[in-house]
Protein backbone atom coordinates (compact mmCIF):
# COMPACT_ATOMS: atom_id res chain seq x y z
CA UNK A 1 0.00 0.00 0.00
CA UNK A 2 1.27 3.43 -0.89
CA UNK A 3 1.86 5.41 2.30
CA UNK A 4 2.06 9.19 2.67
CA UNK A 5 -0.53 9.75 -0.04
CA UNK A 6 -0.98 13.39 0.97
CA UNK A 7 2.77 14.00 0.69
CA UNK A 8 2.89 12.31 -2.71
CA UNK A 9 -0.01 14.48 -3.89
CA UNK A 10 1.78 17.61 -2.70
CA UNK A 11 4.94 16.63 -4.59
CA UNK A 12 2.86 15.89 -7.69
CA UNK A 13 1.32 19.36 -7.58
CA UNK A 14 4.82 20.83 -7.12
CA UNK A 15 6.06 19.06 -10.28
CA UNK A 16 2.98 20.31 -12.15
CA UNK A 17 3.70 23.88 -11.01
CA UNK A 18 7.29 23.70 -12.28
CA UNK A 19 6.06 22.24 -15.56
CA UNK A 20 3.47 24.98 -15.90
CA UNK A 21 6.06 27.64 -15.14
CA UNK A 22 8.42 26.16 -17.73
CA UNK A 23 5.64 26.10 -20.32
CA UNK A 24 4.75 29.73 -19.61
CA UNK A 25 8.39 30.83 -19.90
CA UNK A 26 8.86 28.94 -23.15
CA UNK A 27 5.63 30.48 -24.46
CA UNK A 28 6.78 33.96 -23.37
CA UNK A 29 10.04 33.60 -25.31
CA UNK A 30 8.17 32.31 -28.37
CA UNK A 31 5.68 35.20 -28.23
CA UNK A 32 8.49 37.72 -27.74
CA UNK A 33 10.28 36.44 -30.82
CA UNK A 34 7.08 36.48 -32.89
CA UNK A 35 6.19 39.96 -31.64
CA UNK A 36 9.58 41.34 -32.66
CA UNK A 37 9.64 39.55 -35.99
CA UNK A 38 6.11 40.68 -36.89
CA UNK A 39 6.27 44.04 -35.12
CA UNK A 40 3.20 42.92 -33.18
CA UNK A 41 2.78 45.36 -30.30
CA UNK A 42 -0.33 43.60 -28.92
CA UNK A 43 1.63 40.37 -28.62
CA UNK A 44 4.48 42.30 -26.98
CA UNK A 45 2.02 43.54 -24.38
CA UNK A 46 0.94 39.96 -23.74
CA UNK A 47 4.56 39.02 -23.03
CA UNK A 48 4.69 41.71 -20.34
CA UNK A 49 1.42 40.44 -18.84
CA UNK A 50 2.72 36.84 -18.94
CA UNK A 51 5.70 37.90 -16.88
CA UNK A 52 3.44 38.90 -13.97
CA UNK A 53 1.84 35.47 -14.19
CA UNK A 54 5.27 33.78 -14.09
CA UNK A 55 6.31 35.85 -11.07
CA UNK A 56 3.07 35.00 -9.26
CA UNK A 57 3.56 31.32 -10.02
CA UNK A 58 7.08 31.45 -8.63
CA UNK A 59 5.87 32.95 -5.33
CA UNK A 60 3.15 30.29 -5.10
CA UNK A 61 5.63 27.50 -5.83
CA UNK A 62 8.09 28.77 -3.23
CA UNK A 63 5.28 28.97 -0.68
CA UNK A 64 4.13 25.44 -1.48
CA UNK A 65 7.67 24.05 -1.19
CA UNK A 66 8.26 25.83 2.13
CA UNK A 67 4.98 24.45 3.49
CA UNK A 68 5.86 20.92 2.37
CA UNK A 69 9.23 21.17 4.15
CA UNK A 70 7.57 22.51 7.31
CA UNK A 71 4.77 19.96 7.45
CA UNK A 72 6.15 16.80 5.84
CA UNK A 73 9.80 16.81 6.96
CA UNK A 74 11.06 15.39 3.66
CA UNK A 75 14.42 13.61 3.45
CA UNK A 76 16.77 12.24 0.79
CA UNK A 77 15.41 12.36 -2.78
CA UNK A 78 12.14 14.03 -1.73
CA UNK A 79 14.06 16.82 0.00
CA UNK A 80 16.40 17.30 -2.94
CA UNK A 81 13.46 17.39 -5.37
CA UNK A 82 11.82 20.16 -3.34
CA UNK A 83 15.03 22.20 -3.12
CA UNK A 84 15.53 21.74 -6.85
CA UNK A 85 11.97 22.84 -7.65
CA UNK A 86 12.69 26.10 -5.79
CA UNK A 87 16.02 26.57 -7.56
CA UNK A 88 14.58 25.87 -11.01
CA UNK A 89 11.63 28.18 -10.44
CA UNK A 90 14.09 30.96 -9.60
CA UNK A 91 16.00 30.41 -12.88
CA UNK A 92 12.76 30.19 -14.86
CA UNK A 93 11.62 33.49 -13.39
CA UNK A 94 14.86 35.11 -14.58
CA UNK A 95 14.46 33.59 -18.04
CA UNK A 96 10.92 35.01 -18.11
CA UNK A 97 12.44 38.44 -17.47
CA UNK A 98 14.62 37.99 -20.57
CA UNK A 99 11.47 37.48 -22.71
CA UNK A 100 10.37 40.89 -21.49
CA UNK A 101 13.80 42.30 -22.36
CA UNK A 102 13.39 41.08 -25.95
CA UNK A 103 10.12 42.94 -26.52
CA UNK A 104 11.45 46.01 -24.76
CA UNK A 105 13.97 46.58 -27.58
CA UNK A 106 11.52 45.82 -30.39
CA UNK A 107 11.99 49.24 -32.00
CA UNK A 108 15.77 49.10 -31.80
CA UNK A 109 15.80 45.66 -33.45
CA UNK A 110 14.09 47.09 -36.51
CA UNK A 111 16.27 50.19 -36.68
CA UNK A 112 17.53 50.59 -40.24
CA UNK A 113 21.17 50.17 -39.18
CA UNK A 114 20.76 47.19 -36.87
CA UNK A 115 17.93 45.38 -38.68
CA UNK A 116 20.35 42.93 -40.25
CA UNK A 117 21.22 41.51 -36.77
CA UNK A 118 17.60 40.44 -36.20
CA UNK A 119 18.09 36.92 -37.68
CA UNK A 120 21.04 36.32 -35.30
CA UNK A 121 18.97 37.45 -32.28
CA UNK A 122 16.12 35.24 -33.53
CA UNK A 123 18.47 32.28 -33.83
CA UNK A 124 19.82 32.80 -30.30
CA UNK A 125 16.29 33.06 -28.94
CA UNK A 126 15.24 29.90 -30.80
CA UNK A 127 18.22 28.11 -29.31
CA UNK A 128 17.22 29.34 -25.85
CA UNK A 129 13.62 28.22 -26.35
CA UNK A 130 14.69 24.71 -27.30
CA UNK A 131 17.05 24.56 -24.31
CA UNK A 132 14.26 25.63 -21.94
CA UNK A 133 11.90 23.09 -23.50
CA UNK A 134 14.34 20.19 -23.29
CA UNK A 135 15.55 21.03 -19.79
CA UNK A 136 11.96 20.96 -18.54
CA UNK A 137 11.50 17.62 -20.30
CA UNK A 138 14.60 16.26 -18.56
CA UNK A 139 13.26 17.61 -15.24
CA UNK A 140 9.92 15.88 -15.68
CA UNK A 141 11.64 12.64 -16.76
CA UNK A 142 14.25 12.85 -13.95
CA UNK A 143 16.85 12.38 -16.69
CA UNK A 144 20.31 13.71 -15.76
CA UNK A 145 21.84 12.53 -19.05
CA UNK A 146 19.45 14.66 -21.05
CA UNK A 147 20.12 17.58 -18.70
CA UNK A 148 23.86 17.25 -19.36
CA UNK A 149 23.22 17.22 -23.11
CA UNK A 150 21.06 20.35 -22.91
CA UNK A 151 23.72 22.20 -20.91
CA UNK A 152 26.33 21.46 -23.57
CA UNK A 153 24.27 23.50 -26.04
CA UNK A 154 25.06 26.61 -24.02
CA UNK A 155 28.37 26.67 -25.91
CA UNK A 156 26.45 27.49 -29.12
CA UNK A 157 24.74 30.45 -27.45
CA UNK A 158 28.07 31.65 -26.07
CA UNK A 159 29.60 31.49 -29.58
CA UNK A 160 26.66 33.40 -31.05
CA UNK A 161 26.95 35.98 -28.27
CA UNK A 162 30.65 36.59 -28.94
CA UNK A 163 30.18 36.92 -32.71
CA UNK A 164 27.18 39.22 -32.38
CA UNK A 165 28.93 41.36 -29.78
CA UNK A 166 31.78 42.05 -32.20
CA UNK A 167 29.35 42.77 -35.01
CA UNK A 168 27.34 45.19 -32.85
CA UNK A 169 30.47 47.03 -31.72
CA UNK A 170 31.56 47.44 -35.34
CA UNK A 171 28.14 48.78 -36.27
CA UNK A 172 28.15 51.22 -33.36
CA UNK A 173 31.63 52.41 -34.32
CA UNK A 174 30.47 52.97 -37.88
CA UNK A 175 27.29 54.74 -36.76
CA UNK A 176 28.14 56.89 -33.74
CA UNK A 177 24.73 58.61 -33.92
CA UNK A 178 23.14 55.22 -33.10
CA UNK A 179 25.14 54.51 -29.93
CA UNK A 180 22.01 54.38 -27.75
CA UNK A 181 20.22 51.93 -30.02
CA UNK A 182 23.33 49.79 -30.43
CA UNK A 183 23.95 49.71 -26.68
CA UNK A 184 20.40 48.48 -26.03
CA UNK A 185 21.09 45.60 -28.42
CA UNK A 186 24.44 44.85 -26.77
CA UNK A 187 22.47 44.44 -23.55
CA UNK A 188 19.91 42.18 -25.25
CA UNK A 189 22.77 40.09 -26.61
CA UNK A 190 24.06 39.75 -23.06
CA UNK A 191 20.61 38.86 -21.69
CA UNK A 192 20.21 36.06 -24.23
CA UNK A 193 23.64 34.75 -23.30
CA UNK A 194 22.54 34.79 -19.65
CA UNK A 195 19.44 32.86 -20.64
CA UNK A 196 21.70 29.97 -21.65
CA UNK A 197 23.47 30.21 -18.29
CA UNK A 198 20.16 29.99 -16.43
CA UNK A 199 19.19 26.87 -18.37
CA UNK A 200 22.62 25.41 -17.55
CA UNK A 201 21.95 26.11 -13.86
CA UNK A 202 18.62 24.32 -14.17
CA UNK A 203 20.38 21.34 -15.73
CA UNK A 204 22.90 21.23 -12.87
CA UNK A 205 20.01 21.11 -10.37
CA UNK A 206 18.31 18.34 -12.35
CA UNK A 207 21.50 16.26 -12.09
CA UNK A 208 21.72 17.09 -8.37
CA UNK A 209 18.12 15.99 -7.72
CA UNK A 210 18.89 12.56 -9.11
CA UNK A 211 22.43 12.00 -7.83
CA UNK A 212 22.85 14.24 -4.77
CA UNK A 213 26.09 15.49 -6.33
CA UNK A 214 26.73 19.11 -7.26
CA UNK A 215 28.18 19.30 -10.76
CA UNK A 216 29.34 22.26 -12.78
CA UNK A 217 28.11 21.76 -16.31
CA UNK A 218 29.66 23.51 -19.21
CA UNK A 219 32.10 25.69 -17.33
CA UNK A 220 35.02 26.78 -19.47
Amino acid at each position, binding site marked *: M*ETRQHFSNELHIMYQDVLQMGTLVEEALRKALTAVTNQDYDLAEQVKQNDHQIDTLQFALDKRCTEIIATEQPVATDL*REILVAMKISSDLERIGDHARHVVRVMDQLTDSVFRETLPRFAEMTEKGISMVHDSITSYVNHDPDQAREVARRDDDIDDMHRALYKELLAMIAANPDRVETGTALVFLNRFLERLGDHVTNMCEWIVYAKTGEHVELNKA
Partner: protein
Amino acid sequence: MEATLAMQTKNLDFYYGTFQALHDVSLNFMRSHVTALIGPSGCGKSTLLRCLNRMNDLIPETRADGEVYFNDQNIYTEDVDPVEVRRRVGMVFQKPNPFPKSVYENIAWGARINGFRGDMDELVETSLKKCALWDEVKDKLKQNALELSGGQQQRLCIARAIAVEPDVILMDEPTSALDPISTAKIEDLITELKQRYTIIIVTHNMQQAGRVSDQTAFFLNGWIIEAGDTKDIFFNPREERTEAYISGRFG
Protein backbone atom coordinates in the same frame (compact mmCIF):
# COMPACT_ATOMS: atom_id res chain seq x y z
CA MET B 1 41.02 13.38 16.08
CA GLU B 2 40.30 10.05 14.46
CA ALA B 3 37.44 8.13 16.02
CA THR B 4 38.27 4.80 17.65
CA LEU B 5 36.11 1.74 18.06
CA ALA B 6 34.06 1.45 21.23
CA MET B 7 32.09 -1.66 20.29
CA GLN B 8 31.89 -3.95 17.34
CA THR B 9 29.73 -6.86 16.25
CA LYS B 10 31.05 -9.49 13.88
CA ASN B 11 28.77 -11.86 12.00
CA LEU B 12 26.25 -11.77 14.81
CA ASP B 13 23.21 -14.05 14.55
CA PHE B 14 20.55 -14.13 17.24
CA TYR B 15 17.73 -16.60 17.83
CA TYR B 16 14.56 -16.60 19.92
CA GLY B 17 14.05 -20.37 20.02
CA THR B 18 14.07 -21.36 16.36
CA PHE B 19 13.27 -17.85 15.10
CA GLN B 20 16.33 -16.02 13.80
CA ALA B 21 15.99 -12.34 14.71
CA LEU B 22 19.44 -11.16 13.57
CA HIS B 23 21.37 -12.26 10.51
CA ASP B 24 25.11 -11.81 10.14
CA VAL B 25 25.23 -8.36 11.75
CA SER B 26 28.68 -6.76 11.51
CA LEU B 27 28.68 -3.19 12.75
CA ASN B 28 31.18 -0.74 14.26
CA PHE B 29 30.26 1.69 17.03
CA MET B 30 32.69 4.57 17.32
CA ARG B 31 33.78 5.99 20.66
CA SER B 32 32.13 9.28 21.68
CA HIS B 33 29.75 9.02 18.76
CA VAL B 34 26.00 8.54 18.73
CA THR B 35 24.84 5.65 16.57
CA ALA B 36 21.15 5.37 15.72
CA LEU B 37 19.56 2.01 14.95
CA ILE B 38 16.46 2.46 12.82
CA GLY B 39 13.99 0.21 11.07
CA PRO B 40 10.38 -0.95 11.24
CA SER B 41 9.00 -2.83 14.24
CA GLY B 42 10.39 -6.36 14.46
CA CYS B 43 13.47 -5.57 12.36
CA GLY B 44 15.87 -6.61 15.11
CA LYS B 45 17.21 -3.25 16.24
CA SER B 46 16.17 -3.64 19.90
CA THR B 47 17.39 -7.24 19.85
CA LEU B 48 20.79 -6.00 18.70
CA LEU B 49 20.79 -3.31 21.40
CA ARG B 50 20.17 -5.96 24.06
CA CYS B 51 22.93 -8.14 22.60
CA LEU B 52 25.39 -5.33 23.25
CA ASN B 53 25.17 -5.74 27.04
CA ARG B 54 23.95 -9.33 27.15
CA MET B 55 20.48 -8.34 28.33
CA ASN B 56 19.12 -11.06 26.06
CA ASP B 57 20.78 -13.62 28.32
CA LEU B 58 17.86 -12.99 30.67
CA ILE B 59 15.35 -14.21 28.07
CA PRO B 60 14.90 -18.02 28.06
CA GLU B 61 15.66 -20.06 24.94
CA THR B 62 17.68 -17.41 23.19
CA ARG B 63 21.04 -17.89 21.52
CA ALA B 64 23.67 -15.56 20.10
CA ASP B 65 26.23 -16.76 17.55
CA GLY B 66 29.03 -14.52 16.40
CA GLU B 67 31.07 -11.96 18.28
CA VAL B 68 30.43 -8.73 20.15
CA TYR B 69 33.57 -6.82 21.06
CA PHE B 70 33.82 -4.26 23.81
CA ASN B 71 37.31 -2.84 24.32
CA ASP B 72 38.73 -5.65 22.17
CA GLN B 73 37.14 -8.31 24.36
CA ASN B 74 34.43 -10.61 23.00
CA ILE B 75 31.74 -10.24 25.68
CA TYR B 76 30.20 -13.58 24.72
CA THR B 77 33.14 -15.69 25.92
CA GLU B 78 32.66 -17.82 29.04
CA ASP B 79 35.09 -15.92 31.23
CA VAL B 80 33.19 -12.63 30.87
CA ASP B 81 30.82 -11.68 33.70
CA PRO B 82 27.58 -10.32 32.16
CA VAL B 83 26.94 -8.19 35.26
CA GLU B 84 30.25 -6.40 34.73
CA VAL B 85 29.37 -5.97 31.04
CA ARG B 86 26.09 -4.32 32.03
CA ARG B 87 27.93 -1.95 34.37
CA ARG B 88 30.24 -0.84 31.59
CA VAL B 89 27.47 -0.82 28.98
CA GLY B 90 24.47 0.83 30.62
CA MET B 91 20.92 0.95 29.39
CA VAL B 92 18.02 3.38 29.35
CA PHE B 93 14.58 2.06 28.42
CA GLN B 94 11.60 3.32 26.50
CA LYS B 95 9.49 3.97 29.57
CA PRO B 96 11.17 5.82 32.44
CA ASN B 97 11.62 3.20 35.17
CA PRO B 98 13.00 4.87 38.29
CA PHE B 99 13.02 2.81 41.46
CA PRO B 100 10.11 3.66 43.78
CA LYS B 101 12.61 5.34 46.07
CA SER B 102 13.93 8.85 46.60
CA VAL B 103 15.65 10.78 43.84
CA TYR B 104 18.89 10.47 45.84
CA GLU B 105 18.59 6.71 46.29
CA ASN B 106 17.94 6.19 42.60
CA ILE B 107 21.44 7.45 41.90
CA ALA B 108 23.14 6.08 45.01
CA TRP B 109 21.78 2.54 44.87
CA GLY B 110 23.57 1.36 41.74
CA ALA B 111 26.83 2.99 42.78
CA ARG B 112 26.61 1.41 46.24
CA ILE B 113 26.08 -2.15 45.01
CA ASN B 114 28.95 -1.61 42.59
CA GLY B 115 31.17 -0.93 45.58
CA PHE B 116 31.44 2.86 45.34
CA ARG B 117 33.34 4.12 48.41
CA GLY B 118 33.67 7.83 47.60
CA ASP B 119 31.59 10.86 48.54
CA MET B 120 28.02 9.75 47.69
CA ASP B 121 26.55 13.26 47.95
CA GLU B 122 29.07 14.46 45.42
CA LEU B 123 28.37 11.54 43.09
CA VAL B 124 24.62 12.21 43.23
CA GLU B 125 25.11 15.91 42.53
CA THR B 126 27.61 15.33 39.70
CA SER B 127 25.43 12.70 38.03
CA LEU B 128 22.35 14.90 38.19
CA LYS B 129 24.32 17.88 36.89
CA LYS B 130 25.61 15.85 33.93
CA CYS B 131 21.99 15.17 33.07
CA ALA B 132 20.92 18.81 33.47
CA LEU B 133 18.54 17.75 36.23
CA TRP B 134 20.28 19.09 39.33
CA ASP B 135 18.71 22.54 39.29
CA GLU B 136 15.25 21.02 39.00
CA VAL B 137 15.60 18.41 41.77
CA LYS B 138 18.25 19.70 44.19
CA ASP B 139 15.50 20.60 46.69
CA LYS B 140 13.63 17.34 46.11
CA LEU B 141 16.36 14.79 46.67
CA LYS B 142 14.34 12.99 49.34
CA GLN B 143 11.15 13.08 47.31
CA ASN B 144 9.95 9.86 45.68
CA ALA B 145 11.30 9.74 42.12
CA LEU B 146 7.90 8.61 40.84
CA GLU B 147 6.56 12.08 41.68
CA LEU B 148 8.81 13.69 39.04
CA SER B 149 7.49 14.43 35.55
CA GLY B 150 8.01 11.80 32.83
CA GLY B 151 10.84 13.80 31.25
CA GLN B 152 12.54 14.32 34.61
CA GLN B 153 12.16 10.61 35.41
CA GLN B 154 13.85 9.69 32.14
CA ARG B 155 16.73 12.09 32.78
CA LEU B 156 16.99 10.59 36.28
CA CYS B 157 17.27 7.14 34.68
CA ILE B 158 20.07 8.44 32.48
CA ALA B 159 21.75 9.97 35.55
CA ARG B 160 21.38 6.61 37.29
CA ALA B 161 23.00 4.89 34.33
CA ILE B 162 25.99 7.23 34.23
CA ALA B 163 26.50 7.21 38.03
CA VAL B 164 28.23 3.82 37.70
CA GLU B 165 30.64 5.31 35.13
CA PRO B 166 29.82 3.20 32.07
CA ASP B 167 31.64 3.60 28.74
CA VAL B 168 28.62 2.98 26.58
CA ILE B 169 24.98 3.93 27.08
CA LEU B 170 22.31 2.01 25.19
CA MET B 171 19.00 3.84 24.75
CA ASP B 172 15.90 1.99 23.61
CA GLU B 173 13.45 4.60 22.26
CA PRO B 174 14.20 6.86 25.23
CA THR B 175 11.78 9.63 24.26
CA SER B 176 8.85 7.76 22.78
CA ALA B 177 6.81 8.29 25.96
CA LEU B 178 7.75 11.97 26.33
CA ASP B 179 6.29 15.29 25.16
CA PRO B 180 8.25 17.46 22.66
CA ILE B 181 9.87 19.69 25.29
CA SER B 182 11.07 16.75 27.36
CA THR B 183 12.20 15.07 24.14
CA ALA B 184 14.24 18.13 23.19
CA LYS B 185 15.90 18.13 26.64
CA ILE B 186 16.85 14.45 26.29
CA GLU B 187 18.21 15.10 22.79
CA ASP B 188 20.30 18.02 24.06
CA LEU B 189 21.50 15.76 26.84
CA ILE B 190 22.51 13.04 24.37
CA THR B 191 24.59 15.56 22.44
CA GLU B 192 26.21 16.70 25.70
CA LEU B 193 26.85 13.18 26.98
CA LYS B 194 28.53 11.94 23.84
CA GLN B 195 31.61 13.96 24.78
CA ARG B 196 32.19 11.37 27.53
CA TYR B 197 30.21 8.31 26.50
CA THR B 198 29.48 6.25 23.44
CA ILE B 199 25.75 6.25 22.83
CA ILE B 200 23.73 3.75 20.82
CA ILE B 201 20.08 4.66 20.40
CA VAL B 202 17.10 2.81 18.97
CA THR B 203 14.49 5.21 17.69
CA HIS B 204 11.37 5.18 15.55
CA ASN B 205 11.60 8.93 15.20
CA MET B 206 13.46 9.59 11.96
CA GLN B 207 13.91 13.28 12.70
CA GLN B 208 15.42 12.36 16.05
CA ALA B 209 17.88 9.96 14.42
CA GLY B 210 18.80 12.74 11.99
CA ARG B 211 19.23 15.30 14.76
CA VAL B 212 21.19 13.41 17.38
CA SER B 213 23.22 10.70 15.69
CA ASP B 214 26.56 10.69 13.89
CA GLN B 215 26.06 7.26 12.34
CA THR B 216 22.90 5.43 11.42
CA ALA B 217 22.24 1.77 10.68
CA PHE B 218 19.02 0.70 8.96
CA PHE B 219 17.66 -2.78 9.71
CA LEU B 220 15.05 -4.84 7.93
CA ASN B 221 13.97 -8.37 8.86
CA GLY B 222 17.07 -8.82 11.00
CA TRP B 223 19.55 -7.75 8.32
CA ILE B 224 21.56 -4.55 8.10
CA ILE B 225 20.49 -2.93 4.87
CA GLU B 226 22.67 0.15 5.09
CA ALA B 227 24.94 1.79 7.65
CA GLY B 228 26.95 4.98 7.42
CA ASP B 229 27.16 8.65 8.31
CA THR B 230 23.75 9.94 9.31
CA LYS B 231 23.97 12.87 6.89
CA ASP B 232 24.52 10.47 3.98
CA ILE B 233 21.75 8.12 5.09
CA PHE B 234 19.22 10.94 5.34
CA PHE B 235 20.31 12.98 2.33
CA ASN B 236 21.54 10.46 -0.17
CA PRO B 237 21.10 6.83 0.89
CA ARG B 238 22.58 4.17 -1.38
CA GLU B 239 19.80 1.65 -0.92
CA GLU B 240 16.28 2.09 -2.26
CA ARG B 241 14.84 0.29 0.78
CA THR B 242 16.57 2.75 3.10
CA GLU B 243 15.15 5.67 1.14
CA ALA B 244 11.66 4.16 1.20
CA TYR B 245 11.82 3.68 4.97
CA ILE B 246 13.29 7.03 6.00
CA SER B 247 10.90 8.90 3.73
CA GLY B 248 7.99 7.04 5.33
CA ARG B 249 6.98 5.13 2.23
CA PHE B 250 6.82 1.84 4.12
CA GLY B 251 7.14 0.59 7.66
